[in-house]
């Protein structure tokens, strides 16, 4: 990993909004590895590979990743114990 290329999840907020239907950067998540709870925007984003990887800002383990094809998005969020999204 080249840490000078690391961004915040804020940088991929548009793609996240596409998947979740609205802007989730201020929504809370809980890391399933270390239990840290924080805003989605605090996740560290690695965007220069074929897919996008979001890592915990505390333990640096993978929380969310996704890959897009021309017709599908494959989302793996097993690194999040839960996500909290506003429904109204």
């Amino acid at each position, binding site marked *: 990993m080249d*840490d000078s*290329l690391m961004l*915040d999840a804020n940088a991929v*907020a*548009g793609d996240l*909004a596409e998947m979740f239907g609205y*802007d989730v950067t*201020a*929504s809370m998540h809980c890391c399933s590895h270390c239990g840290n709870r924080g805003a*989605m925007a605090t996740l560290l984003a690695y965007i220069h590979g074929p897919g996008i990887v979001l890592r915990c800002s505390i333990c640096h383990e993978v929380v969310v990743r996704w890959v897009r094809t021309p017709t599908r998005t494959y989302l793996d969020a097993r690194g999040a114990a839960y996500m909290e999204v506003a429904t109204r």
Partner: protein
Amino acid sequence: MPEPLAWQIGTVTAVRPESAEVKSFTLALPAWRPHRAGQHYDVRLTAEDGYQAQRSYSIASAPSRTGEVELTIERIPDGEVSPYFHDVVRVGDKVEVRGPIGGYFVWEPALGGPLMLVAGGSGVVPLMAMIRERAAAGDATPTALLYSSRTIDDVIYRDELASLASSNHGLQVVQTLTRSQPPGWTGYARRIDSEMLGDVLRGLGPQPLAYICGPTLLVEATANGLVELGLPPARVRTERFGPTT
């Protein structure tokens, strides 16, 4: 629940050079929505063969400017999107954008302060939106901007920052030039370090709310430095934009 973001076609209504490598582009938007200072827009270019390139650019204008938005864009020499803006885009051109985006790296007067803003290079853009919003709202939150640039010619919004700092109650602008300094320079002349952060913090009062934006390594060092100086991590918000160019 807010409505999903949709792509829309904006029209460039003004292009203004800010420094040798930086220009501001004003876009008129048919589906304009009020933004919060610190948010960004995604910009998407589509080639004739269908290839698309997408980047995020921070909003520089205050939310009080309705119907339009100003994006300040630094030219990245081997970039896919920024050279197009710098070399090709003219007033009247159409560009595809979606936004405003981001609910975390945002500030509005209701969030209070004191406000500690730290910028490296074009990381000043979202912080400038906060400074402009503060000025437009007549807000008096004690605010310090610590802004690192390579040379005096790389300083974005130079005249506006000078005039805001002299006329605006409670706004302090502290600059450091890391590569070269003009004759008579009275600001700092090194990379942001703990001593510099301490100097600026002392003038601000207790428990400031900090926003740091710039190259990733500057953001990391500054965020760690502020926490070591006693700021609670929850009071430090960061936006990294990648490697130094």
